[in-house]
């Protein structure tokens, strides 16, 4: 078996993983990024709309600054976030975006003079200032007070990822692609690297590193309908949870995006609504302004998704063979705007729906989109529980998003966290020497080899795809946009059974080489454990906050639930162990009303002394 040594190992090669790796490599350390796919195929590339940074260059962003961005972010999180982290994030975002510009990202720029824009279907005029011409411009996004989402047409993620990967190559970061980490190598106190399966040959390798980063993105694919890439199955979270000592934070906080297209669940960007697109019902009438007079289509994602579901429940959805949906209307934006600034949307409609959004309506419904939960880290990005283990990006719960993430804040998080956590990783590497415990390595590898051998020779009875489908259906049907005690109890019970089935797989094929059935069989039990963390965490959290909406507990309860959930998994158990910690140590902005989304709040002050 091959053993590969390095200073820094990133599991994941999207924007967050590569940004941290660049920091390590430029400080003179050897850095390797592992990836399921070639780095440029990472899901970061799919981010269309933009990256939030309070530059305040365009006229509608005038007066913007980190303080305003901070307010929006904390409100957006429904006060579930770590305010210290949110503060660091908003202060660093302008720096991060300028660095991306310096590295080559072709951000759209301010054009002086008058131009038109749309809001809620209405045509309005604005005039950009001459002195700002050529600076990075921004578009409107949901849940923000100012136009702050900086963009490259609607391929911001693609442009950023390609630029960053260029810098990674230039900086000497090595990419080992088509590999999958199956477990972390650790002794209960220190993380020493990972056991990795090559997806070209099926062979196992051990990677030993002084510092290991988990940056594997979201885990949306535990849901049946998700906007996530099909590689987003939570691999990084699974290996952290399986250590038994590293907790996952706020797993019940799962965001649904208002505009997944029907039936393929591909996302069309929030930029559509930001640029003035509207949501219509079966009568082709707008409805969002009735529910949310102030923000209408531009309330935050959790709110818009719930209002859409409410509206469909009132019988105003459009019936289709794929279930009920609503319409997104961008026709009034005109051909030029749609084929340039919203070109990805245009192409998605043409290629995947066979419709022309210049003249036709787009069928949309809320679809699983983002995981606020992940590997719980401190503000330096260091994971709880194991020395030498870090996490960044969507895979982690660094926790600037709390219970709902604002559009454009995830793309910003990847590179901002990359800078901050990258700096901390370098500090760690400079002050750390380690020795590798050979027995920990060999027992970790042996364990994975046994699993593979058992699956090949095994006497299981379950078919891997059927078990996966069962898990996805449970989450979709019982742990969705609206939640309640009855459904969640049912979900937990069903998932416990499915977990047993997932440990009893019989391969239909021979399992040799880069066999895809084997890859899923190895991953599936862990996916069900993640599903249980989501469902059980949701069952226990008896309040509504951000994306977590309990029909039986509609109030946000700051008195009892201004806390973050930590889920631990002890080997052999059938449920996670849940612990809680305060949502934030430092309170810069005391809990208050978000100004959209309605709902009652049980104030923290009502707590009895």
């Amino acid at each position: 078996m091959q053993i590969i040594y390095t200073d820094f190992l990133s599991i994941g090669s999207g924007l967050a993983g590569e940004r941290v790796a660049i920091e390590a490599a430029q400080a003179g350390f050897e850095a390797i990024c592992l990836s399921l796919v070639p780095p440029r195929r990472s899901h970061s590339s799919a981010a269309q709309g933009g990256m939030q940074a309070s530059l305040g260059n365009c006229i509608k962003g005038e007066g913007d600054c980190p303080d305003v961005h901070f307010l929006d972010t904390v409100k957006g999180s429904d006060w579930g976030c770590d305010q210290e982290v949110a503060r660091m994030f908003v202060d660093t975002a302008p720096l991060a975006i300028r660095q991306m510009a310096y590295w080559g990202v072709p951000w759209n720029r301010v054009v002086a003079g008058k131009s038109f824009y749309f809001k809620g279907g209405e045509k309005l005029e604005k005039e950009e200032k001459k002195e700002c011409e050529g600076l990075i411009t921004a578009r409107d996004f949901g849940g923000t007070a100012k136009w702050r989402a900086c963009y490259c047409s609607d391929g911001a993620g693609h442009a950023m990822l390609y630029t960053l990967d260029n810098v990674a190559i230039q900086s000497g970061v090595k990419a080992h692609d088509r590999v999958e980490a199956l477990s972390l190598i650790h002794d209960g106190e220190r993380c020493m690297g990972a056991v990795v399966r090559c997806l070209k040959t099926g062979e196992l390798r051990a990677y030993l590193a002084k510092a290991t980063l988990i940056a594997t993105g979201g885990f949306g694919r535990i849901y049946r309908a998700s906007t996530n890439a099909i590689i987003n199955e939570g691999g990084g979270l699974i290996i952290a949870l399986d250590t038994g000592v590293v907790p996952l934070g706020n797993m019940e906080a799962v965001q649904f995006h208002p505009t997944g297209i029907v039936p393929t669940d591909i996302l069309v960007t929030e930029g559509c609504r930001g640029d003035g697109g509207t949501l219509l019902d079966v009568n082709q009438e707008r409805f969002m302004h009735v529910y949310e007079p102030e923000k209408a289509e531009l309330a935050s994602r959790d709110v818009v998704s719930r209002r859409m579901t409410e509206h469909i429940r009132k019988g105003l959805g459009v019936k289709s063979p794929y279930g009920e949906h609503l319409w997104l209307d961008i026709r009034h934006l005109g051909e030029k705007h749609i084929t340039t600034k919203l070109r990805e949307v245009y192409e998605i409609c043409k290629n995947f729906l066979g419709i022309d959004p210049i003249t036709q309506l787009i069928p949309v419904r809320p679809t699983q989109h983002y995981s606020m939960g992940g590997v719980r880290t401190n503000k330096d990005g260091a994971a709880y529980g194991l020395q030498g283990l870090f996490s960044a990006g969507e895979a982690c719960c660094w926790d600037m998003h709390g219970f709902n993430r604002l559009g454009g804040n995830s793309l910003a998080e990847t590179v901002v966290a990359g800078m901050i956590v990258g700096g901390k990783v370098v500090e760690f590497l400079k002050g750390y020497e380690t020795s590798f415990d050979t027995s920990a390595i060999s027992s970790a590898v042996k364990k994975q080899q046994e699993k593979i051998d058992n699956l090949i020779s095994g006497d299981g009875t379950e078919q891997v795809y059927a078990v996966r489908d069962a898990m996805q259906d449970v989450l979709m049907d019982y742990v969705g946009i609206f939640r309640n005690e009855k459904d969640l109890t049912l979900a937990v019970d069903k998932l416990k059974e499915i977990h047993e089935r997932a440990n009893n797989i019989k391969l239909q094929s021979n399992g040799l080489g880069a066999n895809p059935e084997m890859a899923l069989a190895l991953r599936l039990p862990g996916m069900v454990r993640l599903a249980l963390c989501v469902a059980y965490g949701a069952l226990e959290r008896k309040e509504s906050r951000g994306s977590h909406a309990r029909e039986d507990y509609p109030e946000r309860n700051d008195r009892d639930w201004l806390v973050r959930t930590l889920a631990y998994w002890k080997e052999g158990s059938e449920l996670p162990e849940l612990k809680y910690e305060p949502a934030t140590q430092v309170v810069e902005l005391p809990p208050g009303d978000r100004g959209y989304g309605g709902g009652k709040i049980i104030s923290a002050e009502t707590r009895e002394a």
Partner: protein
Amino acid sequence: MARKLTFSIFRYNPADPDSKPEMKKYYLTETENLNLFVALNKIREEQDPSIQFDFCCRAGICGACAMVINGRPGLACHTKVKDLPDQISLMPLPGFKLVGDLSVDTGTWFRSMNQKIESWVHTDKKFDPEAEEERMDNDLAEKIYELDRCIECGCCIGACATAQMREDFLGAVALNRISRFIIDPRDKRQEKDYFEVVGTDQGIFGCMGLLGCEDVCPKDIPLQDQLAFVRRKMGFYALKKIIPWKN
């Protein structure tokens, strides 16, 4: 009546000593809105779980699922079955090392290409964290983005006769990337520097101008214009080099 579809799929697993390269047939009944992403997953999940192919974003953004579809390189995710005859043949993209079945190793190829052409902004300027960003004309930013849209799917390489004949040919993807840096004022490389990278038979002078690349590009990048642009620039530079009074 729904069509009965026949898929002939290239099968070979290099890790299995019993596996021999072959075309294997699978059958599906056509359903509404069926595309190759859905069809291939159905075949794998219901008929043959060992079959290897690559998908990632399944939305035409990441470039993972390029393959040869009825003789033509394209992205499987946005190929609708209703646009194909009922006999569908699927082959791995040529020009890349085979991983197995329809899956090829594009990662190694593209990383090495990017290394060769030094696909990054070359500048002596240091990043100043205190300073405002350097200004840029919006039209220029959009022009750069236009060329930056390439998703490195490899279709242009699969459709390129030169790339099939000489392994070291950089291909349209690299030449388009060079164009992107030539027009980017942040990149301080001179003509001479670009000439060293692409002024060769592995670069622009190896291109035979058959333009298979542009025909198959799933992102409709104007590769023909870029090849002409780079060829003109490099041609003039070569001329200047051989004409002594121009030096």
